[in-house]
């Protein structure tokens, strides 16, 4: 049974169809990458998967149960594309608030915060308000808040955007470790070298999956040396097929 399964997700805003019947499944311990250009519908899909937005039609099942559900949300960690932090508060205060909502208290909360900060590669400054953090620090704090309750499934929308290569590598090492421990990750990106690190990739364009498979498999099928070239290949094949 997949940890998360979505079937025929359709989402539209006004008369714009943003997702046109998308299906996917992720297994335990897997890192699934959602790769696609800006405006492809990655955030829209991820919001539906995390239960933050409801699709026009289609079902999302997490751990075998339909989303959205408050109990399931306890087992899912979600990181939005925007940082979604309380800028007036310090990093610790942010973590304490989000942790409290997950039912963490006192020592357990402190231990969870320390662990999440390590995983997110962030050293906090005790007295500084998050407002005065750099963009990259905020990004990592936002990641830490998603990791706080040690969720089995992580849904992360561009977790490394705006980060320097050093931190990016550190964070991907953390992702690998989490997957090895049996956590499942869904990560959106439009950076090719990150896509290479995923176990499986779903290429999305104009609200549709144009290809899905391991990075090596996708390159093979496209006969392309890089993922970038493979993406272009599938994009043209797909639209060629549709026009015909």
């Amino acid at each position, binding site marked *: 049974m997949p940890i998360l399964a979505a079937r025929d997700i359709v989402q539209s805003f006004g008369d714009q169809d943003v997702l046109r019947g998308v299906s996917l499944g992720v297994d335990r311990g897997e890192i699934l990458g959602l790769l696609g250009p800006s405006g492809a519908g990655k955030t829209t899909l991820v919001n539906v998967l995390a239960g933050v937005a409801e699709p026009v039609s289609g079902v999302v099942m997490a751990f075998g149960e339909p989303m959205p559900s408050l109990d399931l949300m306890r087992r899912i960690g979600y990181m939005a594309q925007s940082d979604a932090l*309380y800028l007036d*508060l310090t990093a610790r205060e942010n973590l304490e608030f989000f942790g*409290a909502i997950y039912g963490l208290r006192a020592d357990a909360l402190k231990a969870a915060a320390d662990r999440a900060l390590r995983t997110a590669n962030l050293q906090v400054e005790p007295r500084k308000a998050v407002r005065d953090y750099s963009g990259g620090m905020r990004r990592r704090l936002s990641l830490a*808040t998603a990791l706080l309750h040690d969720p089995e499934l992580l849904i992360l929308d561009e977790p490394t955007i705006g980060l320097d290569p050093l931190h990016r590598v550190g964070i991907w090492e953390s992702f690998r470790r989490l997957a090895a421990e049996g956590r499942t990750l869904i990560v959106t990106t439009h950076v090719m070298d990150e896509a290479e690190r995923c176990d499986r990739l779903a290429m999305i364009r104009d609200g549709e999956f144009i290809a899905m498979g391991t990075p090596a498999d996708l390159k093979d099928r496209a006969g392309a040396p890089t993922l970038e070239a493979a993406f272009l290949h599938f994009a043209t094949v797909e639209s060629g097929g549709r026009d015909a």
Partner: protein
Amino acid sequence: MHNALAVTIRILRQFAHDRRTLFMMVAAPVIALFLLNTIFGAPAYEPLILVESMPSDFTAALADAGATTEMADYNDAMVRLADANADAYVTTRDDALTVWVEGSDPSKTGAVVRAITQAQSKSLVSLELDIKPITLPGGIEIDIAKYLPIPELELPEPPEVRYIHGAADMHAFDYHGPVFIGVFIFFYVFVTSGISFLRERTGGTLERLMAMPLRRWELVLGYAQGFGLFVLVQSAIVVLASIYWVGFPNFGSIWLVLFIALSMALVSMLMGILVSEFASTELQMMQLLQIIVIPQILLSGILDLSQTPQWMQWLSRAFPVTYMTDGMRAVMLRGAGPGDVWLDLVVLWAFIVLLFGANVVALKKYRRI
């Protein structure tokens, strides 16, 4: 419940870090009250009355009645009245006391008439009070007499007035004190809570919260508690400063006044949060404020609505501020107790419950469950 508490603690921590908001919360109402205090502490208006060929005891009596007098002839007086450089011109025509008034400000005209009436009865000049219309530049003739209550001549002994409510030294304005308290609380609380909740949305944290095991009512309750504490302090400041500093009279229990003020503050807070649901920027929030708050303030009881069309009176009954004004007036001016204002309080708390529910439902826009 734990979740609501977590939200409350977070909000209080945000306040603790946001010194400016804390400062504004005290400073803004205090500045407004200070202005009111100064305006209503000012002495009564002294009209400038031009006189021609009037008995000297009459002129002296005018001065006693609080007017400033100057000699002037007809032509000079007309020029000065037309330029609004004087309030009135008094002379005797065909044995009748005749008064020309500048007339654009009814309260100044009233002061003139009061001074002249008083002087008349004192100086025993029993002349006909004949107020002539004045011609403004441009040939517009205004018949002032039509707009003025012509005072009785031959004033009888002043009656002894006994007060059931209020007191002899109460200013006309004091009647409005309770309304000002209500309007201040309504306005300041609405703005602060509305903008804070708006930030939760524009900052993306609301969406983030909706991905967490936090129930919608827990979020609203958390806000209500956090802001409740905040508005408790704010309304206490407004009430205490209004009564003990500005000097609005209070003949009732200060605790009851505080309780009504807090109830109103809770209504405004929940209304601010609800309205922020319909704004996506702070500018839009300000626009909504204009169409939602200003009409409520106009119909709250600052102005007397008893002679307005029925629909307007019904409309004012749909606004919570009206009940707060009624209750506050009853307590502060007539010394009413809880037994007298319970209906106003019930309506206010019904609004609180209703708005709480409306907020929980409005959040469905972000998550169904």
